């Protein structure tokens, strides 16, 4: 295995991984390359295998075949805590915060070294000012949007070089989606983000590079700027409404260029 082909551009390489959950063959050969810096988006229908891809990278559902290379180091087959310890933060879907722990504890538990939280507190409260106000409250008192913010904030406590974020917009009100988008944009300036997102507007606004997962395989990839022009492709894999958003974006970018 050539380990350091492009140590500077790719932070994460996933090579044809196959993942099973019980007897179910969920991933049948997913390959990805995540470039250092910015946001890479995983797109695809419900049940296509996006979440499983994230979990496979992190070792929560370890792949049976294939390779996962983080910063030139093979990490497949390691235990999840070891992989996370190498600098991967994870924001699961459905706002999986610890409901019986306070906001403070939810953040504190993510420390990998003593004092992590103090060091990062300003950055986190800058992104999500609400959390400062709610600091002492137990997690189950938070609203859905606040829980989602806490889940993202939790992944920022430790020094992570890569964040895996799974559907942060799910079930959020439009205003909150906008806030979340801003936050992710801001944090992606310092960290690489691999984002799973169904909301095509959010995905297309944030992502520079995209991968489409379909039926447990990587079906397509490229630059987001190209994808929004390819209405047929979007319609095929993501549905009509996403295609319409893509069309709208394409038209606007044309306009901008024209004007």
């Amino acid at each position, binding site marked *: 295995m050539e380990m350091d082909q492009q140590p500077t551009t790719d932070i994460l390489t996933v090579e044809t991984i196959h993942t099973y959950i019980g007897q179910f063959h969920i991933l049948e050969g997913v390959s990805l390359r995540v470039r250092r810096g910015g946001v890479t988006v995983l797109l695809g229908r419900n049940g296509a295998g996006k979440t499983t891809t994230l979990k496979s990278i*992190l070792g*929560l559902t370890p792949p049976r075949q294939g390779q996962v290379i983080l910063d030139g180091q*093979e990490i497949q*087959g390691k235990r999840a805590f070891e992989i*996370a310890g190498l600098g991967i933060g994870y924001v699961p879907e459905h706002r*999986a915060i*610890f409901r019986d722990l306070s906001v403070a504890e939810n953040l504190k538990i993510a420390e990998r070294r003593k004092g992590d939280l103090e060091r990062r507190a300003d950055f986190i409260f800058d992104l999500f000012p609400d959390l400062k106000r709610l600091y002492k409250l137990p997690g189950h008192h938070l609203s859905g949007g606040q829980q989602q913010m806490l889940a993202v904030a939790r992944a920022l406590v430790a020094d992570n070089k890569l964040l895996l974020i799974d559907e942060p917009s799910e079930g959020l009100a439009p205003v909150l989606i906008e806030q979340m988008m801003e936050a992710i944009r801001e944090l992606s300036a310092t960290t690489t983000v691999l984002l799973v997102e169904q909301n095509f507007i959010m995905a297309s606004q944030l992502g520079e590079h995209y991968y489409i997962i379909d039926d447990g395989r990587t079906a397509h990839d490229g630059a987001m700027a190209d994808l929004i022009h390819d209405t047929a492709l979007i319609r095929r894999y993501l549905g009509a409404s996403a295609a319409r958003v893509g069309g709208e974006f394409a038209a606007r970018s044309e306009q901008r260029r024209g004007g």
Partner: protein
Amino acid sequence: MKLKGFWRQNSTFVVLMVLLILLIPLGWITMGQKPFVRTVLSGLTLGALYLMVAAGLTLIFGLMDVLNFAHGAMFMIGAYAGWQFYTNPTFLFGLAPLVFALMTGLAATPLLRPLVIGWPVPEEWQRRLRTFLILLAIAVGVIGVLGLDLRDLAKTAMVSTMVAANPLAEATPQEPLARFWLRPTLLLIAGLLMALAQARPGDQTQIVHRAEQRRGWIALLALLALTVAAVLVREPAAIVVLKMNANWRFALALLVGMLIGGGIGAVMETSLVRPLYVRPFYLVIATSGLAFVLKEVVQFLWDPLPYQMERPPLFAQPGKADSILDWFSAQTTTVDILGVTFPSYRLFIIVLGIVMLLGLLGLMRYTRLGMIIRAGVQDREMVEALGINVRRVFTLVFAMGVGLAALGGIGAAPFIPVEPVMGDRFLMQGFITVVLGGMGSVSGAAVGALLLGLARAFGDYLALKFQLTPAISEASTVIIMAIVLLVRPSGLFGKKE
């Protein structure tokens, strides 16, 4: 708003406490002062004992979803270990080098890994090789233990209970060092063979960590030094312990019982429980099988007889103290509490229970480990994803839970007969306690233990009054549990769903 939230969270607790407080004057008046106080005190004693079993059970269940049916056996093992340490520790000191030697061998696993993963072992032979190595290790280990002075334990135990005044006379002579050193050596080899199997020769899919290597060396050397030390101090240490002040010896016995329990818990989790997490059904069966085996082992070593452990001198001076303050200077067997003559050792059990509860609550509330446990009860996967080694936390919590049960065992030993079945009754009551309080909740277990202890004590009182036997009140605790569960299917403080 805040009050409403507080009420919603703590309503059960508040209602229960108010009820209990209302019952006090009622009991005081109807029963009369003396019987009432006596009954409350015995209820508290029982509650403390139940808590010691239930705390570990509820922790283990909450975090790992494991119903540990061997918990009662651990209570018993703790009692035997502590009692043995208190009366005649030669056996334990003779065993320690062997255990350390085996651990030393096992600690070599990460060091062997980089050496053996390159071995040219074909894939289909890897498993067979590992099985062979483990069987070989077991054989070597058995040879190492063979002929150890085990059968004399029952005899010395009997003697030491009879001539309690001078236990030194019973310090059995041990095998001479010239012959004994072979045993740890053999166990070291057994441990190394197991380590070799664990390093999975030929399996190149493994990853070798540098950090693990360095830590491995440190652990190996430390354990080796410990083994050598244990071999050397084997005889003198036993004599030192026996010459010690009996109160200190008892305190040390509490610690030793707890540590041995914790050690067994850790071994049990890594060897027996871990492979079965995916099959919870079998976990129940395996732990009850283990309880069965442990009871048999104890009967094999100590004969199936009940023993009575003497009380440490702190609670054994003849006479009665007029108050608790008085007892501190007189150290008498009994204390006068609100007109009731009460055994001072039972007060010690109550205090031990309270200390344990406070320690545990503090641990859960204020330490990082406690935070991880509380988080893990909700979502293990996410805890792991944050970079925390959940598997190690599991082992730790399991060891802790079992250690608490063992501590309960040795604490109870001067108070109830030390016998192979001593854990069974407490396991049953411990389960009821945990179910009452709601599985996974430490404070729930505490309230459950309090309720159950008091219910038993008052039940016994009522049963006697109506000329029934305590058996009836014991059986009726089940009815309490059934009623609670019919109203709240997941216990008083359990999570819904």
